[in-house]
């Protein structure tokens, strides 16, 4: 174990997980002196009946749902945020609840910025432009939740908003809500969570607290992924995956953006493939690249992947290597995951475009790293 260096760590959300987690939301809102939440979700979630479960869970409380808006489209847009902010004010709401993932959470963050400050959301684009604390934001994750939904980032109309104030105040991970609907959906979430966790773990600026979250996320995924893919509706496995997403979010939010995330997000935007698929192919490539560059792998990765017994049973010098191998073995066991970007039908010129875009969005990354990882991902790692 390396000695803890100098670092800062911030993750503010109150996390409630397990049976009846949603039923606690009124009490938590009460703590913020809020009793009139504005609930957002999308049609797909709404059709699967999850918001009904949410409303039911709020029974016997004095919370009145200002409105349950279940028409958030697949793209989060500024105009919708404006309309919803007006709606929010007209109904006299005092807090925002997002049921779902992706655009729902983004729109919820946008509405929260708009109603809390009364200003135009576009003015907050960029890093740390939100002036102060916002109204309480509760996120109720569904199976499709991605770690970056649970951080202080939002993407509305293609614009990036980043601020600690955007972080959800309460995250209620309820088994009623997180059961997966299909293998693709589970795989998508799992691969994003795993990429974030592994990147945070292997980041040069890793610190003990981000390690704790990241390794827990890796652990949970290693343990539950197979079962979850096989039976997406399984309660224990779904909860494992959802918890992993939350843990990965905490780790990810405290570490600089890594190659896999940067490339995966851009590729997904460019080609329309799920981000998880892209990252699931890029991550083994990035690990292979590390190996080629003779960068030492952290020995604790083995601990996270296989537990203490395997860790203790491996000579100190081989632990890092074995951890990586164990991670790669995990990938090779996932039958539904394409192995190469070519298999995913990503054309070379789109890949190059993704590298350019990723560099533009994250100037701290190095082009040669991105190109090398992308090159490995195109052809695949054996």
């Amino acid at each position, binding site marked *: 174990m390396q000695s803890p260096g100098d670092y800062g760590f911030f993750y503010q959300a109150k996390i409630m997980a397990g049976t009846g987690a949603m*039923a606690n939301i009124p009490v938590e809102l009460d703590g913020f002196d809020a009793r009139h939440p504005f609930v957002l979700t999308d049609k797909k979630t709404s059709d699967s009946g999850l918001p009904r479960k949410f409303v039911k869970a709020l029974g016997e*409380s004095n919370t*009145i749902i200002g*409105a349950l808006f279940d028409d958030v489209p697949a793209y989060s847009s500024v105009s919708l945020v404006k309309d919803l902010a007006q*709606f929010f004010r*007209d109904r006299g709401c005092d807090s925002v609840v997002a049921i779902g993932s992706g655009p729902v959470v983004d729109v919820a963050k946008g509405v929260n910025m708009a109603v809390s400050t009364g200003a135009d959301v576009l003015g907050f684009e960029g890093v740390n432009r939100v002036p102060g604390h916002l109204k309480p934001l509760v996120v109720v994750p569904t199976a499709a939740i991605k770690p970056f939904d649970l951080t202080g980032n939002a993407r509305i109309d293609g614009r990036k908003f980043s601020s600690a104030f955007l972080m959800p105040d309460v995250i209620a991970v309820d088994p009623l809500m997180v059961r997966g609907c299909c293998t693709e959906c589970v795989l998508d979430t799992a691969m994003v969570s795993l990429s974030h966790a592994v990147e945070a773990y292997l980041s040069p600026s890793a610190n003990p607290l981000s390690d704790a979250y990241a390794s827990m996320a890796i652990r949970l995924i290693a343990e539950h992924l197979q079962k979850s893919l096989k039976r997406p509706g399984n309660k224990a496995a779904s909860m494992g995956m959802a918890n992993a997403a939350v843990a990965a979010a905490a780790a990810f939010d405290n570490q600089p953006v890594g190659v896999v995330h940067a490339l995966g997000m851009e590729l997904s935007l460019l080609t329309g493939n799920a981000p998880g698929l892209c990252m699931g192919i890029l991550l083994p490539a990035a690990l292979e690249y590390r190996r080629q560059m003779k960068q030492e792998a952290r020995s604790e990765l083995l601990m996270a992947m296989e537990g203490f017994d395997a860790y203790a049973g491996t000579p100190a010098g081989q632990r890092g290597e074995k951890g990586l191998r164990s991670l790669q073995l995990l990938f090779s066991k996932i039958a539904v995951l394409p192995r190469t970007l070519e298999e995913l039908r990503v054309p070379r010129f789109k890949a190059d475009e993704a590298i350019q875009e990723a560099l533009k969005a994250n100037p701290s990354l190095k082009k040669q790293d991105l190109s090398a990882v992308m090159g490995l991902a195109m052809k695949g790692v054996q």
Partner: protein
Amino acid sequence: MMHYNKYPEIKPGLKLLKRMYVVTMLFVFGRAFQAVSRVDRGAKEVFAKMPDDFVLDFCVVPNGPHMVVGKDEKGRIKYMGWNPAGKKVTIYMKIKNMDAAFRMLTFQESSCTATSRDRLIVDGDLPTACGVLHIMDLLEVLLLPKFLAKLGVKRYPKWSQLSPVRKWTSRLLTYVRLVA
């Protein structure tokens, strides 16, 4: 423009059956508190350690049923009914929601598990609250048959901790006082 009418205000419904059950159970527990404090040696000890102005409001937030138990002027434990209004409550034990209360009072979760799972909020003195939980466990042991009580308590007391004589005497007397 939005069509506001499409998204009406929703007032989450009541859970009447659960509520009725919880109300009943709290009533029984309240009276049992009073009863056990008079008959059981162990309970007496615990209550004796509590401050003189001890008034407990055991409730489900935000507007669920209450159970108020406290010491009267003579220092005796008394069930003070379901309405905390006008009473000088020194310690609140709040169950966060009706579901949790139901789960706890149907012994699906022991009071300890519930506490560890973050379903209880205590406003007030912590040792006193622990005492209350202790009594509640005792009550469950006394009032319920073993197979049920086992689910509800952290550790079912052994013979050495609670002799059958004391258990059965207390159980009988508590029931008598509860009903009477």
